[in-house]
Every structure is written in structure tokens, then in C-alpha cells.
């Protein structure tokens, strides 16, 4: 086992356990891991931004390929830093205006295309289909997402939930009924999404625990076990001392 992997196993196992202590209570070990995490992640982002933005997007094209048009975004980026100088703070608005302007422009047709047209197109489906011998029939296989019954359920769902989101008319009479159906649909969907996410989250937990079990192997010097003992011991000492402090 190379040394860096052994060290890596110990560090990874330790940090994993420290974060897990949060489940017991907020404590110094968690705080240590938390602050380290914030530090490392910001550092990581800075390095990545430096590497991709400064080096690969700015420095190399400008100096090596002579693409001086990049002075424009460089200038606009600099304007953002004008915030630190009260007299010229307004200059930073130019940078915001540029970003937000481009973003809004890009958004409009793309949202219409993929979130409105595409969704409407897929909801508008015939409620009958042609049978093999040519006559129209109504297919009601629930497991086939393209069956007519499912098309109908889908339509009812979309329509009733849209009714719930009307704000400028009072919810009474038929609108109330529709909106209420909408709420039921909303709740079913939330429940289902919740249940589905349980699976995804549990897989992650399983992944972390599998790693810990692996690091408990003799070839890693039983890192997880020793660190678990150390963590528990630290927590006990900490709780006892805090108890004493409170009494004293």
C-alpha cells in the first residue's frame, strides 16, 4: 500500500466520522471538519477558477493566440470590483447589467421552447387510439405511459394544478373544486418524490459506510476502528467537561 493512500484512508475516514458526529450534537469535531470543508472548497473553487478562467480562458488565448477581444470581459469583470470604491460603485452596475441582460435574453426563447411548448405538446394527446383492425379504441393500460387513460389522467393533473396557481381570481365554485383536485395531485406528487429520494439518499449513506468498512481493513491499519474509538472518546471527554463548565 503506497503511503499516500494509507494516509488518505486515515484522513478520509477521520473526516467522515467527524461530519457524522453532527448527528449526535454540534461539537468541536464537527466544527473542525465544517470549517476545514468551507476552507478547502473555497480554495478548490479559487484554484479551478484561476486555472480555467485566468489561465485557459484569458491568459493563453490573449498572449499565445493574440485574441485581444478578451479585454472586453476583462474590463467588465474589473468593473465589478468597483464596489469597493464608494465613489465609483455605480460602475459595477454595468457588469451586472451585462450578465443579467445576456441571461434574460438567452432565457426567453429557450424557456418557451423546452418548458412551455414541449410540455404542452406532450400533454395534448388524442384520447382515442386506432386499434389493430382500424377502429378507434380507448386504451387503458396504466403501465403504458402512452395509453389513453394515462393521457387523460395526465391532462386532469396538469389542468387542475394550473387552476390552483390562479392568483387573480377567487377560488370558489368550480374553480375551487379544480384547485382542490390540484392540491391532491400536488400532495401525491410530493409524497412520491419524497419516497423516491429516500432511495437516492440511502445509496449515498451506503456508499460512505462501505468506505468506512473498507478502511477498517487491516491493510489500512484498521483506520476506521481506531478513529471511531478516538472520536467517541473525544466526544465523551467534551460532554463531561461541558457538563462541568455548566455546573461550575
Amino acid at each position, binding site marked *: 500500500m503506497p503511503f499516500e493512500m494509507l494516509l488518505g484512508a486515515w484522513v478520509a475516514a477521520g473526516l467522515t466520522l467527524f461530519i457524522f458526529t453532527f448527528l449526535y450534537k454540534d461539537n468541536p469535531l464537527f466544527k473542525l471538519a465544517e470549517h476545514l470543508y468551507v476552507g478547502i472548497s473555497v480554495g478548490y473553487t479559487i484554484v479551478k477558477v484561476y486555472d480555467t478562467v485566468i489561465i485557459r480562458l484569458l491568459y493563453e488565448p490573449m498572449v499565445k493566440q493574440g485574441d485581444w477581444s478578451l479585454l472586453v*470581459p476583462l474590463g467588465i*469583470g474589473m468593473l465589478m*470590483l468597483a464596489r469597493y470604491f464608494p465613489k465609483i460603485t455605480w460602475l459595477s*452596475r454595468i457588469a451586472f447589467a451585462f*450578465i443579467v441582460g445576456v441571461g434574460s435574453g438567452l432565457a426567453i426563447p429557450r424557456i418557451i421552447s423546452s418548458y412551455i411548448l414541449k*410540455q404542452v405538446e406532450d400533454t395534448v394527446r388524442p384520447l382515442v387510439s386506432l386499434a389493430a383492425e382500424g377502429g378507434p379504441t380507448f386504451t387503458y393500460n396504466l403501465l403504458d405511459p402512452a395509453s389513453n387513460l394515462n393521457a387523460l389522467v395526465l391532462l386532469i393533473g396538469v389542468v387542475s*394544478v394550473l387552476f390552483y396557481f390562479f392568483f387573480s381570481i377567487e377560488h370558489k365554485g368550480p374553480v375551487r373544486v379544480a384547485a382542490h383536485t390540484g392540491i391532491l395531485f400536488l400532495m401525491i406528487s410530493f409524497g*412520491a418524490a419524497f419516497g423516491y429520494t429516500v432511495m437516492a439518499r440511502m445509496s449515498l449513506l451506503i456508499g*460512505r459506510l462501505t468506505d468506512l468498512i473498507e478502511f477498517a481493513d487491516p491493510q489500512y491499519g484498521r483506520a476506521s476502528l481506531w478513529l471511531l474509538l478516538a472520536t467517541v472518546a473525544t466526544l465523551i471527554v467534551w460532554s463531561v467537561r461541558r457538563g462541568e463548565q455548566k455546573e461550575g
Partner: protein
Amino acid sequence: MIFLRRQLPLLITFVMGLVFAAQYYVPHPASEQLLTTVNKWIQIIGGFALVLGVTSLFHLHAVKIRRKEAGWGYSFVLYAGLLGTIAVGLWANGKEAVNGALTAFGWMYSYMMVPLQGTMFAILAFFIASAAYRSFRARSREAAVLLVAAVIVMMGRVPLGEYLVPISGDFSQWILNVLNTSVRRAILIGISLGAVALSLKIIFGIERAYLGGGKE
């Protein structure tokens, strides 16, 4: 001066907004080229925005240390993590691995970033359970519907559930594919209309919250 302060940003937003909305309808390579260029620019400008954030973070913890606020020692840990990662990252030229061998930066990524991130995610597994216990109560018809749907889907997604109630797999699939799709679709249509309306207002200078200060 007033023009520069008030009108120029609005003018920039207006022009950029129209140009890039129009870009969508133009298939010519020149328009594609324009899009790639400006995307690169936005990335660069976004990089500078990070300076704002990092300064704020530095300031916050510097104040903590100076005032010796509770837990100021952890601020040192944060600084150490931050500066250490930057040093190691620059040393490795921002590369996690060279010729397939991990650099020190890559080591920090694999053995510190990944476990920390993964464990935070894994904590969700515990929280999702406690959230279910705390809030899945049949207080009303709506709440009952929600909890029944959740239980069915939880059953249907694992071998044991499929074994005990064979239909649960298909049923949960149906809930996810049909009912869930219809609701998400309606929510999406609603918020998309909101997003388009907002973008239009921004382009035409009616909505200025993004410039800060709301009205003026």
C-alpha cells in the same frame, strides 16, 4: 453623469437582452459563434464575481479573529484549509493528476473534498428519516395522501417491497411516471411563464431589482 449611472446599465441590459433573445432564431454559424464568445465572456466575468465573495468571507472571519468571538479558533482552521488548498493547487497547476498519478491537489480532492461532500450528502439519509417521522402524520386528507404515496414508492423501489407486495413496483412506477409528471409539468409551466415575464421586464427596464436598491 446621471445618464451613465442610471441609463447606461439599462441600455446595456436592453441591447444584450434583445440580441441574445434573437440569437435563438438565427441558425447561421455567425450567431452560434456569437453565443460561444459571449458564454466565454460570462464565464470570465463570473470569475471576477468570486473575488467579491471571497473578500466577504475573508472579512467575516478576520473580524471573528480580531474580536476573538466564540469559536474564533475555527476561523484559523478555515484559513488554513483555504490557503493550503490554494498553495497546493497552484503548485500542481490546478491539475488533479499528471500522467495518471495523483498530485497533492488531487489527493486533497479525493481524500478530503470527496469524503466531506459525500458525508454531508449521506447525513441527508438520517434527516430524511427523521423528517418522515416528524411530519408524516395524517393530520388532514392532503397529508394522508402525501404519506400514502411516499410509503408506496418507498416499498416499490426495493427488493423486499417488491417481494412482499409484488404490485408495489409497478404502482410506484405509475405514480412517478404519470401523476408526478403531470404535477411537475403544471408547476413548470407556471414558473416558466413567471420567468419569461421577468426576463421581459428586465430587458425593458421595468424590473431593476438586480441592480440593487430597488426603486430609483
